């Protein structure tokens, strides 16, 4: 008889081929001491963190720290209960009101993580007669969410509004409701959805709703940080916004906001909301405070984008292939997983942390060194990061040594 986990043999083989030679395993990194939003001790190495999704650097915001401390003292370390049982404190309701105010929507539900928000909403929203049309590059939590739905699940080509149009057109005579699912910024390459085009397609058909996951765009895009719909100016056309507090908001938790009049019935229907413990009060308090800082964070957004452009131009100038442009995610493409792992290890040895992202978790089968910027990065830190990228890229053979380049040119 086959062993319990034998079916993971291909994954084990892939892991062993990449990591079993004794070097650092990129998926077992341990932060031994946290110095700030942008630096930590990993082993014996003081390391610049360029892969945290901590876009605005709010994890140490003094106002949020104080609110969290106060809530911890006042309410204890946890609620020990579900939102529908004993786990809704005044703080959870205040956070939901703050989310409604922030987005200008009628209703908000706070979940325990962003993953659970997608899982809960996407598995519950649409029924057996309905259709979900999702962008092919959506996050794992969206895939897992729709898998739990009784609706028909259809993928459209990544960021291709014409393909979406074609697929909606085929369904035009079908009676069910349709839900389009996209992300504001896609996490791996940092590219934005063509939201204006998608909204135009949506409006051509009846009974079509739009859900956008703003996990990576909340706090990053829009004058007040409300994400891609704010930047594009079509917030009323996005019926459901899902997001997380674990990126720009600097803590953990998930949410969904909507002005649909019957939205609140989801509080009883969403299993990922009903059957899990609610967020600890200290987390809720810091999320509420940081949401306010996101709104007033125009200066942070400017610094974030300036930092992103700085790293992007520095890495491009080295001759590296960077997949994203004008985005807080700067993803360097390596030719294959082995080179990517060697590259990643070279960076970590020199004190730079980025995310290693390998297929099948990446689009186009890319092997990526995925950097994400923080408003708190200094120019000095980023210059150091760029210099280290240059040294390591030369070592792993991705770019020619600088002297060679010079002599080749002149």
């Amino acid at each position: 008889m086959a062993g319990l986990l034998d079916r993971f043999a291909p994954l084990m083989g892939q892991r062993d081929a990449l990591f079993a030679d004794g070097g650092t395993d990129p998926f077992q990194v341990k932060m031994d001491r946290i110095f700030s939003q942008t630096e930590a001790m990993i082993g014996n190495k003081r390391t610049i963190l360029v892969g945290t999704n901590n876009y605005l650097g709010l994890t140490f915001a003094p106002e949020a720290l104080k609110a969290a401390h106060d809530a911890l003292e006042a309410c204890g370390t946890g609620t020990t209960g579900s939102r529908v049982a004993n786990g809704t404190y005044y703080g959870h309701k205040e956070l939901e009101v703050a989310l409604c105010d922030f987005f200008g929507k009628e209703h908000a539900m706070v979940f325990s993580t962003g993953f659970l928000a997608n899982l809960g909403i996407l598995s519950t929203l649409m029924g057996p007669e309905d259709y979900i049309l999702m962008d092919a590059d959506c996050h794992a939590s969206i895939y897992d969410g729709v898998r739990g739905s009784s609706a028909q699940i259809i993928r459209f080509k990544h960021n291709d509004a014409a393909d979406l149009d074609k697929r909606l057109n085929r369904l035009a005579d079908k009676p069910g409701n349709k839900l389009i699912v996209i992300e504001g910024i896609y996490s791996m390459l940092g590219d934005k959805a063509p939201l204006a085009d998608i909204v135009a397609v949506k409006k051509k058909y009846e009974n079509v709703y739009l859900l956008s996951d703003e996990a990576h765009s909340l706090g990053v895009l829009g004058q007040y940080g409300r994400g891609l719909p704010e930047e594009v100016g079509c917030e009323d056309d996005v019926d459901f916004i899902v997001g997380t507090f674990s990126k720009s908001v600097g803590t953990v938790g998930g949410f969904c906001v909507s002005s649909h009049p019957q939205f609140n019935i989801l509080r009883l229907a969403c299993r990922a909301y009903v059957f899990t413990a609610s967020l600890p009060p200290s987390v809720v308090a810091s999320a509420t405070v940081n949401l306010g800082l996101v709104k007033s964070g125009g200066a942070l957004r400017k610094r974030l984008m300036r930092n992103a452009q700085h790293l992007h131009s520095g890495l491009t100038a080295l001759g590296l292939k960077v997949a994203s442009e004008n985005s807080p995610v700067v993803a360097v493409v390596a030719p294959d997983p082995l080179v990517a792992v060697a590259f990643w290890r070279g960076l970590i040895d020199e004190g730079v942390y980025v995310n290693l992202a390998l297929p099948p978790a990446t689009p186009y089968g890319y092997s990526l060194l995925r950097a994400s910027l923080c408003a708190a990065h200094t120019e000095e830190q980023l210059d150091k990061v760029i210099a280290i990228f240059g040294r390591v890229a030369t070592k792993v053979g991705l770019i020619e040594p600088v002297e060679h380049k010079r002599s080749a040119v002149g």
Partner: protein
Amino acid sequence: MNAPTGAEPSPDTLAALYEILKSFNKTGAELGPGTRFSEDLNFDSLVVMEFIAVVEDDFDISVPLNILPDIATIKDLAVAVEKIVAADK
């Protein structure tokens, strides 16, 4: 395993699928109605998605993700594709 579907797909549908599969057939397995995607062609979830996207383009249809777990062989897929094409008319 899958229960027999009963329906027999048309040779045209099968031929179109074989044609698409040429560029996905990394194991060099011989292609027939009974060829299995997972066991014979070594398709993982990523390849399945890429392959289905090409099938959708070729037949101008949408293949719902929901039906994928029930598709083990080329014949299963051919039958499913014909069903979708018929429903779209």
